[in-house]
């Protein structure tokens, strides 16, 4: 058992308060779990707030639950969010998945999750979540590395020759068994019907062969372009350990460099695929 930190204590107080005051019917947070990742907890009674924790084991992006039918049935939702999770919520707000009024945001100041801290945490710019209803925790120390390193990982892949990249991705995507953990854990994959479930026509073949896997991952990558907030959950839950995060990062880098856009930084921005400018870059267009 970990000792209860002051952060966890104030988190529990905030949660209990939200439940007693009736501001929320349920608080979505983290609780202890045998695995190395804390498990999502759904606290519906003030006394249960004691189950909640927050430490570096709290990888999960709980925003994914905001779109889940049975969770919404519980009533008004309060949710524990790290700064990075908040970016996903911003996208959900923009896309009318949830309305801010139906949502109580309990922000936690976070100094990075994972031991050692995840890559995304090493240059995190949103350790202090903005726009929450309450924020708990002490001001976090600044990230060790600068945001310039944001895309360092994929730049390594980009430096490979085309043949090397193809060999690499054939091997990686060849492993995909189409369990769709990546899709299900993604806060932004909330479609009532995923494109892979559309059979007339079947743009994406469901068979876990290379052809189907490439189609699936490209489709997913493009559907998340300009939306993915690089929370890295898809990569974390992939049973086959496919480096899915780098696909999202690649497209994040693209929209960042071409359109000066970074997803989820605010709820009222327009996504790159729904915006345009006459002088967008168009390399290679004949």
């Amino acid at each position, binding site marked *: 058992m970990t000792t209860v930190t002051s952060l966890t204590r104030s988190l529990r107080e905030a949660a209990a308060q939200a439940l007693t005051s009736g501001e929320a019917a349920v608080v979505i947070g983290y609780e202890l779990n045998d695995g190395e990742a804390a498990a999502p907890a759904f606290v519906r009674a003030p006394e249960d707030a004691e189950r909640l924790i927050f430490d570096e084991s709290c990888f999960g992006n709980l925003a994914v639950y905001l779109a889940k039918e049975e969770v919404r049935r519980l009533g008004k939702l309060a949710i524990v969010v790290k700064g990075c999770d908040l970016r996903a919520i911003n996208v959900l707000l923009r896309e009318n998945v949830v309305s801010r009024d139906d949502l109580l945001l309990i922000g936690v100041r976070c100094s990075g999750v994972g031991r050692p801290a995840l890559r995304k945490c090493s240059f995190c710019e949103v350790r202090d979540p903005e726009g929450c209803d309450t924020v708990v925790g002490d001001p976090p120390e600044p990230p060790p590395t600068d945001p310039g390193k944001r895309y360092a990982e994929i730049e390594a892949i980009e430096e490979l020759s*085309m*043949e090397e990249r*193809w060999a690499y991705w054939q091997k990686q995507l060849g492993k995909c068994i189409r369990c769709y953990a990546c899709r299900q854990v993604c806060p932004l994959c909330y479609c009532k019907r995923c494109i892979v479930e559309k059979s007339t026509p079947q743009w994406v073949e469901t068979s876990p062969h290379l052809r189907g896997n490439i189609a699936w991952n490209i489709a997913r990558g*493009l559907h998340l*372009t300009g939306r993915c907030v690089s929370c890295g959950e898809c990569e974390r839950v992939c049973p086959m350990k496919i480096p899915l995060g780098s696909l999202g990062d690649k497209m994040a880098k693209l929209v960042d460099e071409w359109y000066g856009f970074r997803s989820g930084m605010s709820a009222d921005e327009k996504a790159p695929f729904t915006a345009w400018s006459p002088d967008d870059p168009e390399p290679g267009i004949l």
Partner: protein
Amino acid sequence: MSSYKQASEDASGWQPRIVAFLCNWCSYAGADLAGVSRFEYPTNVRIIRVPCSGRVDPMFVLKSFERGADMVLVSGCHPGDCHYTTGNYHARRKLLALREMMSFLGIDPRRFKMSWVSAAEGSKWSAVIRQITDEARSLGPFESFPTFTLQEVKK
């Protein structure tokens, strides 16, 4: 299907297959003009007419490759001239994103082309087709891509 293959094969055997998505108002009209103006261009291009380049879903391009296209072209109105004002701007963002992703995955981005051909540019159309057909021919069959293949069904 084999009948068509033979049609497209010359003495040297293999011929590149190019699938082209043309917007109805500019490029399709441009290709038509190329015809009425008697501009010549290779027969390797197979045209699919869409209302606007903005109608072209990246999935269309991908599926064309799955079905064995050696090159895919999407052609629309010049920026600013879209019949639907902004369709080609949206196409530009979405389809170039696809091309960037292809390249990241190591899928040869030279296999995917975009062009702006106006209704008045019959000569440009034939020039574009001649250029990309030559390139497709020099790139050879798109074998690295996992296309839809079946063993010959035993009778």
